[in-house]
């Protein structure tokens, strides 16, 4: 995997994927920083890992399920909405999506 230097466009593409708007100063700063960080992690490219599987979790647990029962945790919907920026009739008011 050839290491590419992070360009302004690379950073803008990532920002778009991550749903974050960046200003020019941030774009430039991050381009430099990401190049340096990715240079550092580049050392993994040459590591031999034949026959090994990726580790996604260390507990070894699989298929942890609970009983299909309704549990009353004692929260009223109204309480759970107290941090919502725009509430109307106990519903989360969304922004316009189309048009």
């Amino acid at each position, binding site marked *: 995997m050839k290491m590419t230097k992070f360009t302004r466009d690379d950073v803008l593409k990532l920002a778009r994927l*991550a749903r*974050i708007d960046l200003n020019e100063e941030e774009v430039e700063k991050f381009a430099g920083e990401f190049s340096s960080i990715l240079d*550092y992690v580049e*050392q993994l490219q040459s590591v031999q890992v034949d026959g090994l599987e990726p580790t996604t979790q260390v*507990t070894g*647990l699989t298929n942890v399920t609970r009983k299909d029962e309704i549990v009353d*945790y004692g929260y009223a919907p109204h*309480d759970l909405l*107290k941090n919502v920026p725009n509430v109307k009739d106990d519903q989360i008011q*969304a922004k316009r999506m189309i048009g």
Partner: protein
Amino acid sequence: MSQWLPIAEIAAKVQTGGLKATELVEQSLKTITDKAEYQAIIATTESRARERAAEIDARVAKGEKIGRLAGVPFIAKDNFLVFGADTTAASNMLRGFEAPYQSTVINRLEAEGAICVAKANLDAFAHGASTENSDFFTTKNPHDKTRVPGGSSGGSAASVVLDLAPFALGSDTGGSIRQPASFVGCVGFKPTYGTTSRSGVVAMGTSCDVMGPMTRTVEDAALIYDVFAGPDELDGTTIPRDPAGYVENLDSSLKGKKVGIIKEYMAGGLDDSVKQQITASVEKLRSAGAEITEVSLPSLPLALAVYYIVVPAEVSSNLSRYDGQRYGHTYPDAKDLHESYNMSRSTGFGAEAKRRIMIGTYVLSSGYYDAYYKKAQTVRTKIINEFTQVFKNVDFLVGPTAPSVAFKIGATKDPLQMYLADVMTVGASLAGIPAITIPAGEAENMPVGLQLMAPARDDRALLGLAKAAEEQLA
């Protein structure tokens, strides 16, 4: 000299009425005010703490049994959801966020009578190794106000040494309990992954996040851990606790214990002054009967690179929930959903959060996933296998907790340099094994921490060894 008794003694005295919970809470709140210049605390939960303390004292007067932590005040890192103050994770993104429920760890401590009095400062979203990434302010190291307390649990660590409360709670994903504990000179314990519930703690790197106590002594750490450790149906990654518990009959003797000193941690990248102190400490363990041998984990130097691929990937996923729609900061002038998402995140997140989200996005993106994320997780397997191999010949591992003593505030100029502060702690995080730091003297007039590790699920044995080591190093 601490103003607080050992935790078990405080609880016992509250239970007999010898100490009043209300007085303990006032004592803690007053100390917090007295030490305000160190900026360890974001907010107190004083109203609720006073209420709970009054309630506990009233119940004691009626002869009721309260619990193992009756009336004991404590401080929680501000990424733990707690009632009585906002939970901010030290981020502008969560300014004003009122937790609708509490973390399981907090609930378990409260069920035994403990009282949360304040929320401690941290690097925002736990991203950092110095607490300088807090969106609010930087906590000062209690030993030297020009130096950092470490991070990300810097506020919690400082709280213990400033004697604000008998104990504090931290979280550790790549060293965030251990490194600050070593920088300020207290005990910091990162238990086996899965033995502590992550429910109600702001998520950072889900495959590494562990909750843990920060205390003056190993004995206190073991007690706090014993109270909150164990499976939780609200966290599907939790595993059973040790049936023997973590307090009774710990094997606290060094004699005959096989301890491996990690060769790769004693090499380049470790400050000479710290190395000297660690070497001297290990010698003290040897003279108490521990069988110290040098061991090698050749892939361990790769752990930091693995960590800074895997954890940003998990961060990018975990922080995608902060979209300005349901909680947290929202951009007020957004004309549509797209702008609302982008600008809420843009104006709510600090630089380090943005950095980690975007690096995570990169390593998970199409065309790069295999080369970065999948490769890193496979090297993770290699590291885990080397730990498993080494534990066939030794029962414990020892080494420094951090490559240096606490550095100066503002001294770290670039993110990669800051990441290197975690070089000795990320290995245990990726492997999920328990690790604890205990004070081991000083270098350059600043505290040094000695790190001990054990195989996964051997928390009991590790706490016993740490207790013995603590005595030797006292």
